[in-house]
């Protein structure tokens, strides 16, 4: 019985006050090993590997120095697989009831039952131009924006704010302005 209870702590979603410090631990481990926590850099590395350096000087750098970071990415994919297949139960995301009703009214069938809405990510809906366009535009915005801002949530919000860097504060304010505009004004127009 006690063992079951202990296991539930792992299988249920983890509370924010456990998760936040564990994310900081990822940053701390990388800094300990002489690296930095910055996931968006990998997108630039992948451009370079794909040969973008032939066209644009920005991509001319020793990508082999970034193999460690690509290894983190590879590990993260494995981590995602392990988490859903071995460390989870069927309990969905405990969303605010207001959020659920709101999303249902927008046409989302089962908010919180999966990690991402089937209405955007299910392979069946890829046949619909609208969904395909959402995925492509979303990716373009993330890839362009993070490089323009020189970092994303890991580099600016976690590492940059923890080290009191003003550029990161400006970037995070930008993240929120963009996110608020999308969630409050644009998503209701799309769905």
């Amino acid at each position, binding site marked *: 019985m006690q063992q079951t209870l202990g296991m539930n702590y792992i299988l249920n979603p983890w509370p924010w006050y456990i998760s936040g410090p564990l994310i900081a631990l990822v940053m701390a481990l990388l800094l300990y090993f002489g690296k930095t926590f910055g996931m968006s850099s990998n997108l630039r590395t992948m451009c370079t590997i794909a040969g973008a350096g032939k066209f644009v000087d920005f991509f001319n750098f020793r990508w082999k120095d970034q193999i460690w970071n690509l290894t983190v990415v590879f590990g993260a994919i494995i981590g995602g697989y392990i988490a859903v297949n071995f460390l989870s139960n069927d309990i969905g995301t405990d969303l605010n009831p207001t959020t659920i009703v709101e999303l249902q009214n927008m046409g989302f069938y089962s908010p919180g039952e999966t990690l991402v*809405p089937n209405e955007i*990510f299910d392979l069946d809906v890829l046949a619909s131009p609208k969904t*395909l366009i959402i995925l492509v*535009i979303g990716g373009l915005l993330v*890839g362009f924006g993070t490089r323009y801002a020189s970092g994303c949530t890991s580099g600016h919000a976690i*590492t940059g704010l923890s080290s009191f860097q003003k550029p990161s504060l400006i970037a995070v304010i930008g993240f929120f302005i*963009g996110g608020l505009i999308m969630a409050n004004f644009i998503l209701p127009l799309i769905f």
Partner: protein
Amino acid sequence: MKFLKFLLIGVFFGIVLVKSEAVSWYRIYEMFRFQSFHMYGIIGTAIASGILFLQLSKKGIIKNINGSKIHVPKKEDGLVRYIIGGIIFGLGWALVGVCPGPMYILLGTGVWSMVIVIVAAIFGTFIYGLLKNKLPH
């Protein structure tokens, strides 16, 4: 072998982000609608723990693997690039619900259409590289 530690850190990162629900599209939506404290709690406690760690490093209590001071690279000064770049990323973050870490993690959870987002994000980074010298920074 020297990359094994980074593989393990990545695995840990992936597990934490799934279990914390930070990879959930719905959690990101809820955050930007101010309908839940969850994501603010995660980001807030991550920053608080990060500050504690970096202050301990600054005082020399925690050192890096070589026994020297932990170094956090400084971001260049600037305004336009951070605010405009930040807004553009934020728009994408709330649309597809992922930042550049979770897009890979969700692929691992079996969300195959994330491949499209990743390829588009790589292309978005390429477009930035193309336009870099013409953009205000």
